[in-house]
């Protein structure tokens, strides 16, 4: 960790202005950023602590949705009665992530911006385009079992590790941001995370210093809300693959995947296949997938997991 200065601004505008300065970085729960700073993967010289900002409430929006403050903890969000009732896929995704202690600290904004778990990204002796642009990707041809099968590039095959983000994608959430100059934006989840392309170090549509102020959920989507996370141990592990789905009676619905790409993976066009079953849907969802020998199983796993979800939904009708 390199030495840094620290401030705790009093308002979102001040925070966004402070964060726009070179070398500055926002810190919320710190559960991801501090680990990365200790390893010198992140090397901010100035930390802007957002914890004093009053962004920790969940409020109803005028059009029947919810506005989730950026600082609402993962624990509080998962436990919120409205979320559990109307957005159960989100609640289920959250509780499948990390551990109770971490979820107490982790915030909604921080969760969205957590960085990949590619093991080579964490080893500063190894080349990594995401960590040191232009140095090369040591994962390609190496240990790829956890890494992306679709949407990856020659520069990077990392996945985005968040469970929450997969649920937000299936819910068509929007991210509300505030820039250093004071402009606000609403970014749809579909556009929030990027594919790696030639610039895997750029992971989102945020500009430098953009403060996330809230996540907006549209009106609830009816149907059976499912989040199924498949992993190597029963708890406290990142997904091999995860499936967030909302299945209506008759088998229509929505589906998004975690653990397969650099962003939560959703292909709206594939959802018209849901009524035809898991095989057809998976074929469309993962069309163009280019897995490695070690992670090709993820395609089968997605299909089998989705199949179980669909047959459960049929059984429940």
């Amino acid at each position: 960790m390199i030495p840094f200065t620290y401030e705790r601004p009093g308002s979102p505008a001040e925070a966004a202005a402070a964060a726009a300065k070179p070398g500055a970085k926002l810190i919320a729960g710190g559960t991801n950023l501090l680990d990365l700073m200790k390893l010198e993967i992140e090397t901010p010289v100035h930390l802007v602590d957002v914890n004093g900002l009053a962004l920790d409430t969940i409020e109803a929006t005028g059009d029947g949705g919810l506005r989730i403050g950026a600082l609402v903890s993962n624990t509080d969000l998962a436990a919120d009665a409205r979320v559990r009732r109307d957005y159960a896929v989100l609640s289920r995704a959250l509780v499948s992530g990390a551990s109770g202690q971490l979820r107490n600290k982790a915030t909604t904004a921080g969760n969205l911006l957590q960085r990949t778990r590619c093991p080579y990204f964490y080893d500063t002796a190894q080349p990594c385009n995401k960590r040191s642009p232009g140095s090369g990707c040591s994962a390609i041809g190496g240990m790829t079992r956890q890494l992306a099968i679709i949407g990856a590039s020659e520069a990077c095959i990392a996945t985005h590790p968040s469970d929450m983000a997969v649920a937000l994608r299936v819910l068509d959430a929007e991210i509300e941001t505030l820039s250093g100059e004071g402009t606000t934006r609403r970014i749809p989840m579909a556009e929030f995370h990027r594919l790696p392309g030639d610039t895997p170090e750029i992971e989102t549509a945020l500009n430098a210093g953009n403060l996330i102020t809230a996540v907006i959920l549209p009106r609830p989507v009816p149907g059976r809300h499912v989040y199924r996370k498949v992993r190597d141990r029963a708890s406290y592990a990142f997904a091999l693959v995860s499936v967030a789905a909302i299945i209506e009676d008759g088998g229509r619905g929505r589906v998004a995947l975690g653990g397969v790409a650099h962003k939560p993976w959703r292909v709206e066009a594939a959802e018209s296949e849901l009524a035809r079953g898991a095989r057809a849907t998976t074929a469309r969802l993962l069309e163009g997938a280019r897995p490695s020998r070690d992670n090709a199983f993820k395609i089968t796993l997605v299909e089998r997991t989705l199949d179980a979800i669909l047959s459960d939904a049929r059984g429940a009708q």
Partner: protein
Amino acid sequence: MKFQTPAGHNPIDRMSVVGQPLDRIDGPLKTTGTAPYAYEQHDAAPDAAYGHVVGAGIAKGRIRRLDIKAAERAPGVLAVITADTAGPLEVGPHNTVPLLGGPEIRHYHQAVALVVAESFEAARAAAGRVRIEYEAHAGAYDLEAARTTATAPEANAQMGEPDTQVGDFLGAFADAPVRLDETYTTPDQSHMMMEPHASIARWDDGTLTLWTSTQMVEWCARGIAKTLRMDRSKVHVISPYIGGGFGGKLFLRADALLAALGARATGRPVKVALHRPLIANNSTHRPATIQRVRLGATRDGVITAIGHESWSGDQPGGGPETAVSQTRLLYAGANRLTAMRLAVLDLPEGNSMRAPGEAPGMMALEIAMDEMAEKLRLDPVEFRIRNDTQVDPENPERPFSARPLITCLQTGAAQFGWQRRDARPGRVKDGQWLVGLGMAAAFRNNLPMTSGARVRLDGDGRITVETDMTDIGTGSYTIIAQTAAEMMGVRMDQVEVRLGDSTYPVSAGSGGQFGANNATSGVYAACIGLREEVARRLGFNSQDADFADGQVRSGNRSAPLASAAARGEIVAEDRIEYGDLHKTHQQSTFGSHFVEVAVDGATGEVRVRRMLAVCAAGRILNPKSARSQVIGAMTMGVGAALMEHLKVDTRRGFFVNHDLASYEVPVHADIPHQEVIFLDETDPMSSPMKAKGVGELGICGVAAAVANAIYNATGVRVRDYPITLDTYLDRLPDVA
């Protein structure tokens, strides 16, 4: 005391304290955070500076340029130690590779520098400023690829000969009406104990005091003395509390050496802990194996040919994983073959991890036994019973000292409800789950080791025990106190146990499940000496004096034990040494493992539902701490079965998943109902305690029992560990 003839009746047989399920006496210190572990010896070294280790960023090659200037100039830095500045270093007796590398690099994350600074943060930040240019050389990192280059390792006392043969294995195997010939693989594994390797070093006038976390105090002391070319008597090693070791802390490692070098350079005490991401590649690991097992049997299930070959790799000068050792002893069979082959690999140094040899060996052999039972249409329990032997099958003139394997198998089967198992795989469903039962035998040798202790009696009738034995979380403090209390006839609260200090008599140390039996036998020997001196002072004949309730009695005369020391403390010291009972009699521990698993029919996720271990390990000195050892070992066996795997990047030559986020071990949610049954047994051949060990027996066979249960649940046989869902997903029955 020389233990040469089987133990007769002795004071331990009373079992009034020994054998009781007492709470561990160090428990309150540990649960309140007041037991000082190596890194927390704040009182001993209040002004310690902090060292941070820099590991090599390549697996094999040379350092071309090592630039420490920026690090030296960084705030708070006191010194930067490298091979250039460290002075001459030798390689310790148990080490294969120099602990401080440079210019030659022998493996990834081999230490190449230590940065010492006023604070931990300053040391770590400055460590990031060390600039190193390497010249990388090609190396061998892939065991499968190196397999053809493997050669027979040199024989030694621990593994015996690399090859053994009895009868005509090849002929008998070829002629056997039922045959199995399969190859199994086990991966590299990391100990991943909770407490990292950690040490504080302080120099006073050429004497080194080392507070460290070591399983074997004397090995550590000798290791550092040899490495620093100093006299052993100038080294004082202190290791009272150890947060787990599993074989990873058997001998000198980089933390201790670098702390000593840092302290010498700065004139200050220096503390060093290996940071977690460094441990997997910097320290030792359990080496991967490739194992071929061949079994030939008659149609009624009598093994006529049993062959087991194992390939593993290590650094030049290292040793093999002795994965065939149990196959030399576990089952009968007139024609036998075992062989170990060792390839040179440039991966980090391989060494012992909980039940070295048997743990991976049983992972293969006990799947093979399950497969063979199925070919024979025999119940796997029955197949093992049919091939029991009461003598060392390679040397039939050597009987086992005790061998209740059949009782372990039968007791386990009865208690677990084994008869309810459907032998046809894939038949039992529970909702989405495919349910299966599996079992395996458990086996691990008993190792007699010389072990010393000193006992003191003071005028208040209190007993103090001193030995350099360690408690790595196993319960050594408690069973040693129980032994002394039983021998001297005092209450537990009248015994103080002092461990882990190299000024105390040299003990067996903790490893190879030999700690409990040998260390308590050393205490027994010292207590016999103390009893004799007490009896002499009180005018009793020590032969017929009875020590109980703080009194010494003989006939109708009695005197308080304390009165013997009224005019001053009495001190007795002795050690247990072994004759050749372990040569005339094979001494081993036995058990059985039974496991129920459920496999998700869609995703292939495995959930272990129930586990049972039945253990026969001689006298159980404390059923509570012994049980805790066995359930810990069973848990580690589940890890070995389902997830533990250091993944080798065969291009770059290192273990990629080198932290606890990516090297997965079981979490609570993975561990189901676990039960342990100890057979009521004493082994008079093993020691005066009539005990053996349990801490490693508990892991041997577990992974195979899980694998066999997965087979029973799904019909999918996986022969490569760990059994992660990607290895069999495409072979699972179609989802409904």
